[in-house]
């Protein structure tokens, strides 16, 4: 059962950074790191490999040269090798285009499982895994909080609005990782050093026959309105009056 797990990762603005909008654009000259849900995905894949349920963990990213550091982090966490689909720094890719690239990567690598983070913390799209499943016509188990792999059958507990749902799927399949799936490991120093020797293969979207021109145009970016102080009211009538005439919500 030599399962190969493909884990796509994305370099995003670090979750702890305060996002600032300057001149209608987000200030990107700040600290970046691996999307936290992708860290959880890498961790789960590496755990499956350590439990001998998978033979190889391959990581891939679509990004500029700076994304290489994200791949190195994935390798330091235990991925075996990496693929870098390089795009210019000024370019952006959107979920559908990434899904198309991943479809081409899947054709190249033949993984049994594609394990993604449930969403990226910059666009919060939460679409790539699902679109990929559609393009490949593969089963999908999203928002996974528990994953069990036995004899090529995946049993996945999903976190849904109403509670927890358990699904079973055969392989190959798409999984997306939710927050409570696991606690990602810290990259230990010996693993950081070993990661240096692991291979990173470079590709371009053209090599994979994918057109990455964005189809969605961003019209405006603005900061949310600043929170103003609350007010105390003396009676229910006053409350209704304020909600109707000041806040305009009823």
């Amino acid at each position, binding site marked *: 059962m030599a399962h190969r797990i493909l884990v796509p990762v994305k370099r995003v603005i670090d979750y702890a950074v305060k996002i600032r909008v300057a001149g209608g654009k987000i200030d990107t000259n700040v600290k970046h*790191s691996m999307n936290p849900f992708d860290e959880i995905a890498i961790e789960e894949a590496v755990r499956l490999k350590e439990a001998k349920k998978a033979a190889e963990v391959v990581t891939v990213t679509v990004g500029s040269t700076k994304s290489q*550091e994200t791949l*190195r*982090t994935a390798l*330091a966490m235990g991925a075996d090798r990496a693929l870098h689909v390089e795009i210019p720094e000024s370019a952006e890719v959107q979920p559908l285009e990434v899904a198309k690239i991943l479809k081409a990567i899947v054709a190249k690598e033949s993984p049994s499982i594609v394990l993604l983070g449930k969403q990226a913390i910059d666009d919060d799209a939460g679409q790539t895994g699902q679109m990929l499943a559609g393009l490949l016509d593969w089963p999908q188990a999203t928002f996974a909080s528990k994953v069990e792999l036995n004899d090529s059958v995946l049993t996945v507990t999903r976190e849904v609005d109403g509670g927890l749902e358990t699904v079973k799927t055969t392989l190959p399949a798409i999984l997306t990782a939710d927050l409570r799936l696991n606690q990602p490991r*810290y*990259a*230990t*120093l*010996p*693993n*950081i*050093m070993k*990661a*240096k020797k692991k291979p990173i293969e470079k590709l371009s979207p053209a090599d994979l026959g994918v057109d990455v021109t964005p189809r969605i145009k961003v019209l405006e970016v603005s900061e949310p309105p600043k929170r103003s102080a609350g007010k105390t009211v003396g009676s229910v009538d006053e409350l209704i009056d304020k909600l109707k005439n000041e806040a305009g919500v009823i």
Partner: protein
Amino acid sequence: MSVPRFASLVSRSRGAAAPALRNAARSFSTTNAIRSAGSIPSLHTFTEEEVMLREAVAKFATEVVGPKVREMDENEMMDRFVIDGLFQQGLMGIETPAELNGSGTSFTAAILTVEELAKVDPSVSVMCDVQNTLVNTVFTKYANAAQKEKYLPKLATDTIGCFCLSEAGSGSDAFALQTKAEKQGDYYILSGTKMWITNSYEAGIFLVFANVDPSKGYKGITCFIVEKDMGVEIAKKEKKLGIRASSTCALSFDDIKVPASNVLGQIGQGYKYAIEILNEGRIGIAAQMLGLAQGAFDLAVPYTFDRKQFGQAIGDFQGMQHQYAQIAVEIEAARLLTYNAARMKEQGKSFVKEAAMAKLYASQVAERAASKAVEWMGGVAFTRDLLAEKFYRDCKIGAIYEGTSNIQLQTIAKILKTQYAK
């Protein structure tokens, strides 16, 4: 080099000296102009693994060490979970080669690790620093192959080491140590006491400096590898002002038997090893003090933009602006001194003066930064609810251990004399 030719000119009137020095500079620049302008990177340049390591350690420090800092300080005890974490992360054998279960990384990587840990807890930082820059390095530089194979893997994976030089009667005057080692057949019988030994409460491996022949003075000082079960006794665990979670103990050796094969390096050369090692260890302490200063700064300055008085954030008052700007300058200067000393050591250049300068200055900056941080945060920082008061207590040791500030100044002055006196 041209400078000696112009030395006599320099000692004449200043007017004559100026063109001479300018000529000297020109001839220096032609011999050193190996690279073009713009190709030599700043000291804020690191290898990929140094960057990754710094981020991994910063994360580990914040998430694993952070929640336990106050508790460890109140209990005056290092948490076992934190110690295990340091070993699991590969942070206790940073420069040890991979074949000996170490992480096989650079000295600067060790310095960055010590710095990042100190931003969160200077006690944890010093444990890691002593292990890497003192204990591991003594083995790597002076031990024989059998000793390296036996002890370096243990030090990298699960055993804490400590450096036992100081005694009640010998601190700065280290060579006046009294611990004796008497040869008896295949053993040495060690007797004496050591004081102020960092890590000693948790340590399993002790590098003990003892004199095999007091009639030879300091030339009898020898370094011994002593294991805990050879009979090392903790005479007293000190209660301290700062770095309370770091154990500092008085040890006693009551005629303990140490195999002759545990002599590290040459007999009678121990004094030399101690001096050389402490030169490197100094850069480690500089990194610890640097991290402490930065940690205190990072704690206090955001607070000044939250705290409003008289209708504005206190951080916007010009008086405050001048203060934190000044401290930021000093932290950056301490950083550059520390990183530069580390890089010079890596390059195999002589770094004794630079290491002393880095340690001296970083410990002074740490004291100023920690003190100001408490002031900037005001009354609440005076309570043990915040860690500002801890940084203030922790910083004082920087001017004392691994060579007091006066010793650093003396070291620097001696080197300056060789450069300036004829």
